[in-house]
């Protein structure tokens, strides 16, 4: 008997002003798998992940996390389900008014009712796991570099040992060395926690580094999905063009 998927997008459509961003998208992620969604700008990668996080509601279809329709959850059910979820946002999305450790411990302090001393200890532990010294704990996010902010965002995502991790463009805006470090940390954390991971990126080196499987989104649908190792050998026209970075091809003809 096969295990049911951890996360499923089932015939999901989403439109803002203009043509649909997602058009009956079907996608699933198995437990323990690291799936990376790649695709060009404006092809619906961020919308796909925001629908899974319940930050947007689908016009059609459902997003099921552990079998529960994310859009239809009550506040309590959402709190319970998302206690197992960690998210690293593109710009880290750290709270300006809080210190680094308060950012990392935000869920522990405000949702899990952990005491301040215990929450701080766990935050410093999480910071150590992303190779940040305890000295940064009392700094403000604005005092950190972009790479350090991403690490703090990662520490916040993993502090409660989540079963499911989401990474939104984890290496965007970072130099190659910091990007490589973040990729290594993501792989390390996903493996050590045994979490299911969904990432979106247009950085192919990042995708190759962190993915078990890669799915390519274009025109609101998944146009290719396969093992990370097949990214460079597939004869799928969309993938070939995206990997090669060519202007001509099926993607250009649709633009």
């Amino acid at each position: 008997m096969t295990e049911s998927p951890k996360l499923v997008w089932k015939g999901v459509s989403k439109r803002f002003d203009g043509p649909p961003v997602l058009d009956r998208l079907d996608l699933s992620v198995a437990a323990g798998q690291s799936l990376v969604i790649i695709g060009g700008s404006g092809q619906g990668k961020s919308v796909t992940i925001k629908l899974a996080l319940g930050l947007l509601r689908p016009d059609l279809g459902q997003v099921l996390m552990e079998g529960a329709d994310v859009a239809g959850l009550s506040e309590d059910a959402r709190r319970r389900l998302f206690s197992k979820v960690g998210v690293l946002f593109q710009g880290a999305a750290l709270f300006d008014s809080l210190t680094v450790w308060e950012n990392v411990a935000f869920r522990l302090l405000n949702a899990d009712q952990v005491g301040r001393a215990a929450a701080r200890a766990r935050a410093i532990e999480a910071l150590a796991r992303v190779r940040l010294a305890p000295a940064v704990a009392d700094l403000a996010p604005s005092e950190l570099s972009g790479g350090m902010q991403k690490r703090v965002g990662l520490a916040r995502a993993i502090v409660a040992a989540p079963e499911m991790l989401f990474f939104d463009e984890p290496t965007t805006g970072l130099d190659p060395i910091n990007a490589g470090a973040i990729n290594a940390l993501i792989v390390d954390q996903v493996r050590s926690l045994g979490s299911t991971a969904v990432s979106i990126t247009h950085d192919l080196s990042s995708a190759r580094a962190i993915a078990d499987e890669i799915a390519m989104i274009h025109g609101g649908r998944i146009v290719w999905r396969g093992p990370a190792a097949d990214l460079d050998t597939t004869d799928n026209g969309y993938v070939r063009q995206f990997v090669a970075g060519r202007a001509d091809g099926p993607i250009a003809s649709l633009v």
Partner: protein
Amino acid sequence: MAGAPSAFRSGAVPAIIGRGVFAAARGVGRASLFATRGVAAALTPPWFPGQILRQVLAVGFFSLPVVGLTAVFTGAALALNIFSGGERFNADQVMPQIVALGITRELGPVLAALMLAGRVSAAIAAEIGAMRATEQIDAMRTLSTDPFRYLIAPRLTAALVVLPLLTLVADIIGIAGGWLVATRVLAVDPTIYIRNTATFIQGWDVESGLIKAAVFGFIVALMGCYHGYHAQGGARGVGRATTNAVVTSAMLIFAADYLLTSLFTRP
């Protein structure tokens, strides 16, 4: 000019008016739903006392200087105006009473609220708008924390509680401003001024102003939160949200002031 009637006949003008009316109705509906959600979050647990305290300080304590200065100058100017204008019909003798009445019933709550609209509503809209633009509000939701409970409810509660207190301070300082001008510039006897004020003013004069202030406080925080929460389009959107928060706060304060005054003064 020849184009105007044909534009009306072709339906372009009614369409524009209709769209404006629908947009306004949609805005009122959205703001009402937002307010309902905010009030529900403020009335039911979990609460965040640390956030409420932080907002009480931000809204109340740090607004004291600006509210105090506004009140003292308003009270002083009011005393001068009533004295010089009242001379025409021998009303200058009731200047202390009119200053007290004007400050407690009307100018104290309205001016304190307008100062808060400029200082606090704009700051709330800018802060929450920037949080929206940088995905901090989305992050909060994924961290199992409802932004309505953590961000909106503490600001609504703080403003609703703090503005009456600020108004009380404004009432005292405003009357003191009138007293200062009356006794130092207009040579009114200080004891008579205080006695006239104390014997004339009734509890309801102050209480009605404080009730108004609570409503205005709610409006100021609500408009800041609402426009900030729905800010779109990065820095420009945040700027627009800030402007809209101040303008709508001020307009709603005046409208609510008239409604409450007509309610309180109904014979």
